[in-house]
């Protein structure tokens, strides 16, 4: 009897509450805020070292109204743009070299593994030591961390090229240039794009970390500033701003591009052999 009541309740609610990804995501945020509020109210010791959701909402509103975020957002965006841009060029080139030629595979494969294994914090600290205080540190740290991820994805994409399609192209005497454009690039594109998405998110995180350590502008720098003045609500407001920004980039920009570029994947209703 006790189990049938929740089941009946679940049956009475719209399916979208359980199946729609966006709706479930909003539900999870609401649940998080509710739990946060309850814990904050019920456990008074926490109030000394933490802030309530209401305080964070107010601090975020103040941040947006003050327009301070514009300067630091533009600074972070510039750091990420340079770091990510370098990672795209270097990672793609490295991935092609390693994927296509045995010699470069032997020469660089282990470096890619090491590059992925090295903790990002070390890279941020070493970048700060090499480049000092300023914009170069976050850009360099983002580039160094993101490059091996992108290279590994391109390398994997090249290894996964369907040999049967290459044989088919040869049987029909299709020119090398057309095979590169229509078979090889198209085969690697999904892995390259997945690498881009990951590298971009990583660039934002590492650039912010490096800004925290050694920069005079940027979202990471402002998080450090708020921590120094012990404004926890201020710290959380920048974290919220950063999270919303990443979600916008992920779902508002990258997911939309993916939907257009890889329409053929979404239409895979039957599956291919």
């Amino acid at each position, binding site marked *: 009897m006790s189990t049938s009541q929740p089941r009946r309740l679940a049956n009475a609610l719209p399916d979208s509450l359980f199946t729609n990804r966006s709706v479930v995501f909003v539900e999870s945020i609401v649940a998080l805020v509710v739990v946060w509020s309850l814990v904050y109210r019920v456990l008074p010791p926490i109030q000394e070292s933490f802030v309530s959701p209401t305080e964070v909402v107010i601090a975020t509103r103040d941040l947006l109204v003050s327009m301070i975020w514009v300067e630091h957002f533009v600074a972070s965006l510039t750091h990420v743009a340079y770091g990510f841009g370098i990672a795209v060029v270097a990672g793609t080139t490295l991935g092609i070299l390693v994927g296509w030629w045995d010699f470069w595979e032997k020469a660089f494969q282990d470096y890619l593994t090491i590059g992925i294994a090295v903790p990002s914090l070390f890279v941020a600290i070493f970048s700060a030591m090499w480049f000092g205080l300023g914009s170069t540190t976050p850009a360099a740290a983002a580039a160094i961390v993101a490059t091996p991820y992108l290279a590994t994805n391109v390398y994997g994409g090249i290894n996964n090229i369907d040999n*049967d*399609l290459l*044989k*088919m192209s*040869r*049987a*029909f*005497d*299709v*020119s090398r240039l*057309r095979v590169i454009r*229509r*078979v090889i690039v*198209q085969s690697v*594109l999904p892995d390259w794009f997945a690498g881009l998405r990951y590298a971009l998110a990583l660039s934002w995180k590492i650039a912010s970390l490096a800004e925290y350590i050694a920069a005079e502008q940027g979202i990471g720098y402002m998080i450090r500033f708020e921590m120094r003045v012990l404004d926890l609500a201020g710290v959380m407001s920048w974290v919220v701003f950063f999270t919303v920004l990443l979600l916008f980039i992920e779902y508002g920009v990258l997911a939309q591009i993916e939907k257009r570029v*890889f*329409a*053929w*994947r979404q*239409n*895979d*209703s*039957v*599956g*291919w*052999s």
Partner: protein
Amino acid sequence: MSSETSTITTDESITTDNAGSIHIENLTKEFDTAEGYELVFEDINVDIEPESFVCLLGKSGSGKSTMLNIVSGILEPTEGRVRFETADGTGDVTLGHVFQSPRLMPWDSNLQNIEFVNEDNPDYTEELGKQHLDLVGLSDHYHKYPGQLSGGQRQRVGIARALSIDPEVLLMDEPFSNLDEITAEELRKELISLWSELNKTVFFVTHDMTEAIQLADRLLMLGDGEIYGDLEVPLDRPRRIDSDEFLKFRQKAIDTFHSIDED
């Protein structure tokens, strides 16, 4: 040649009078393996007439796909050569290929898959691509992706792609072996219908005796490095696989096919 189905209609812009002949001369193939040279076949001589439908039969590992790959130019022979004769006398042949799996690019629409192999074809237009998809019964699927089609439909696109380059010779490597029997049977009938309409020379590799007798004018049997069986199929079309004549000939072909095991 008579048609088994009446569903195939050819557009005037699709060529129907350019079949080529194949002449396999003293063909030998060896593979260089870790254990030394492995002989696949030796001194094979076969002439295939224009507009004929020839099936090459053999057990797994007999070298039938190797021979098809040499005929198609993908593999080089160790000795001998493959020569083609065309209606215009140049011997400059265009080969159409249909593979065991369709080998379509999943990111391209069916029409784009056909366009892909027509790079050097000055006469190719989108309209011609559509006509070839019409030819294999895919009029409503021009802009669909291969992933949206069934296995049989994808193989039809593969056939349309091969025909779109206007080949003098069509090379088919077990094209129906990955399909369920009902779909395979349907496609065999359509292939015969297309062949009757388009008058192409077809060189078809299979290990399925019933399929071979249903389709071919002539059966070649490859094994132990030689062509040990060469049978004309004396059956009228359309061929019913349960008719007495079919079953009688099938038994004769099977006896020939297994004769190599007795030697």
